[in-house]
């Protein structure tokens, strides 16, 4: 409820409710050809699918009430919601079961937009769909009667990326049946974007009814403890046994090393001393390698590398 209120305040603040002066050229598409089964069309791309003004769904004795809503769609309604590109002026509608709902869809862009709903009873609605489509600036009106069941219907524009980029809402009949993710201002995305470490991530909001699959969201959260574990693992590894052995070895051998180098490099310039040290290291290395190969040969019991003829 708090959320709804904030959405309301948000939209008031940004003043996105269209003033009539801003939409002088909106054409009302009313001259539609009826193609049967609730399918109406005109030659300018206006379209209504699943129109139903009088057939009662199973379980409805009568139309419970008549509700008319006007929905505005367009680029400018994405303004209050950073990260979206297309928008609706409202994203949630609540009606009683068996309501006769008349939707006037006002498209204020110069492209196509849609009000599409799925999941309606197929014996009343072809493909279970109620659909309004219009190329703006224009508006189109359609009517349907909602079933008796408590259910949340997804409302969206099905053009590629329009729902993903903000044209998404929900129509809640009765108590509804949960909610959908990534509805602007209402629910969080199931898969949030990563804005990098410098920006503050929005906190995940607790949504008891969210039909988000449990596997989806926690993946991002679960990675955090993993990182911590590897860091702590590294720090414990730093003071490992080998390091302590090296420490002891270094501490004990340092006096001898210093004396040895000091004696060998007595009276030399810095450059000569360095060269001398490097030579010393090289000869040590050679001795070591010779020792290992000698050891290996000794252990394998063969004194030649090539097989005997």
């Amino acid at each position, binding site marked *: 409820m708090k959320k709804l209120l904030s959405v309301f305040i948000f939209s008031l603040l940004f003043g996105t409710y269209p003033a009539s002066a801003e939409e002088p050229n909106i054409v009302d598409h009313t001259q539609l050809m009826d193609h049967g089964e609730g399918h109406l069309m005109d030659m300018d791309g206006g*379209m209504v699918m699943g129109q139903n003004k009088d057939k009662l769904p199973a379980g409805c004795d009568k139309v419970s009430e008549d509700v008319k809503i006007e929905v505005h769609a367009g680029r400018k309604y994405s303004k209050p919601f950073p990260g979206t590109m297309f928008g609706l002026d409202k994203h949630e509608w609540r009606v009683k079961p068996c309501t006769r709902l008349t939707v006037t869809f006002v498209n204020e862009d110069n492209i196509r937009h849609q009000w599409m709903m799925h999941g309606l009873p197929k014996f009343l609605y072809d493909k279970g769909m109620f659909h309004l489509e219009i190329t703006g600036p224009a508006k189109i009106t359609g009517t349907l009667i909602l079933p008796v069941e408590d259910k949340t219907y997804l409302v969206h524009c099905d053009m590629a990326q329009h729902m993903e980029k903000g044209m998404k809402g929900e129509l809640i009949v009765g108590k509804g049946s949960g909610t959908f993710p990534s509805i602007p201002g209402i629910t969080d995305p199931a898969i949030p974007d990563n804005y990098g470490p410098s920006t503050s991530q929005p906190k995940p909001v607790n949504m008891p009814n969210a039909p988000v699959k449990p596997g989806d969201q926690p993946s991002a959260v679960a990675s955090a403890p993993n990182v911590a574990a590897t860091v702590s693992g590294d720090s414990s590894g730093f003071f*490992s046994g080998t390091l302590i052995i090296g420490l002891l070895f*270094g501490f004990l051998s*340092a006096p001898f090393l210093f004396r040895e180098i000091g004696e060998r490099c007595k009276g030399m310039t810095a450059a000569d001393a360095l060269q001398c040290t490097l030579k010393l290291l090289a000869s040590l290395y050679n001795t070591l390698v010779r020792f290992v190969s000698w050891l290996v040969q000794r252990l394998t019991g063969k004194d030649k590398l090539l097989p005997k003829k």
Partner: protein
Amino acid sequence: MQKQSLVSLLGCALLSISPWIGAVTTPPPTVKVDIGAAEPFCNSGVPPEWRDAQVIEGVKIQEERVCNPDNPADIAAFVKGTNNISMQTLMDTNLAADAITLSNDMDGDGDPDLIVIKLEVMELNGHSPDFPGVVPTYDIAPGVQPSFWVYTPKTRDMSTKSFASAEANSLLRMPSPAIRVEQGDVVWLVLENTHYFPHSIHLHGVDHPYMDHSGEGNDGVGQTAQMDVMPGQTKTYVIKPRQPGTMYYHCHVQPHTHIPMGLAGLFIVEENRPNNWVQTFNVGNNKVRVPSVAVKEKFSQEYDLFFQSADKELHQIPQSANDPRLIAKAMNQDYDITDATDDYYMLNGRSFPYTLRESLIVVEPNEKVKLRVLNGHTETMALHTHGHKATETHYDGIEQNPSAQITRDVYALAPAQRVDLELNTKDDGLHSYGQGLWMFHDHVERAFTTNGMGEGGSISLIAYKSFLDDKGTPKVHGMDLTPYFTKKYWERKIPVWQNWADDWGSLGQPAEGALPTGSVTAAVAPPPILSSTTATATPTNSSSGNSWGNLFTGLLLGILGYVLYLKRERVIDIAGRLTHQLRDKK
């Protein structure tokens, strides 16, 4: 330094051991890799009659004998316009009622001269904030789904094939459709930008005025002609092309990424003839089922061939985030095309083996076929036809002097260039070597791979009809094509030659991680295949390197400690002075 010495030490040890070990080592056996689920060659599910020659709305449509032919209702709408066909035919398409409006026979020669074409911009294989997959899906090869942006004819209803499917409907696909108009037509090209980024149309090679009558820029170039078309906005480009030819259209907003993303297509101006109804769109290119009058004068068939390439990294960007600002940043500021290499090679929007489902050039002996070829790659291409030498008749839409035309078997095209070819199937040892299934492909080697896996890329076939069955399946005489129709093959998990040569898999995959019998130390096991060595050996390597590093660090710390101990009086002195200074400051 300490690592190098470690390596040479180990190397030394190995060198002295290896001859002694070699005598008793047996390499691991071959394992058979399961290829997993394979698609059938043809799963388009189209009604078989779509392939037949037929007449709809008075439009004579040629046959198209491939697995995935065009919908004839679409073709009728493309030829007559959505305003001149019956409602039933329109409902059989996915087109918007105002997609193509043809009217106004101004010169009275029996064909429309005012052409209004509406284009939308759609994203394929895009991101979803709701589930991990992409939407709407479009596979260029099994399981290969790079994101694309395409111009599409204006459509209606759902973007997907159905409510239950995430697959894009047949009009939303790569490449952007070939557009055909007649010479002298007044063409309104309406761009309705339905995408979330700005776009434009630049008519490359097509005769168009720099400004239109209202004084608006008409060249599609943001910097010189007109601001880009913003999301939700529309722009009409008005042209009256005076010269015919095979031309090109593409987006000119950030073109170094927008062209490879797919916003590019063929634009063909057909020669003016009486009663010349041209096929306005050729969605998915390939066969032109209604060739223009001028083309039919010389040729029996016509094909549009558009070669494109894609860099995997670029085409992952729109899938990596939902916020358009993040996508814009990744594309415009982070992505660097000068460091990029192409990974996918497509002919008419598909890679092998999917090209075999729709991009066959189906011929019979003694035919003349017109091929319009566009190079949409980022680099030069070298198209090669097996079994045929075709004649280059037009360069960039301009006819070459007929006596100077070249007949050859490799056709070079720089990026954005067009070549018109005359493919003659006369079996004379020059133009054709006879009937068969003859490959044609870009002969730049990487172009017949898909992400480096062969044989993929833009390979397709010149298929003689006697070598095809009713559904357009080529009767190949070589190896089994099934592995190419699995996702696993393109994930590089199937040994290419495992079923070849013999029953025991002498070129199959050796068992991974198995120790050779009788070996003494794991260190000298013969290297298994590359992937397993990198996978298993890396952690042990790094851990051993780590312990040597620790020893060395310890050694250094020890010496440092000793030095500190030697100079302890000075150190204490300095420390004392420092603390004093700090206290004074306070």
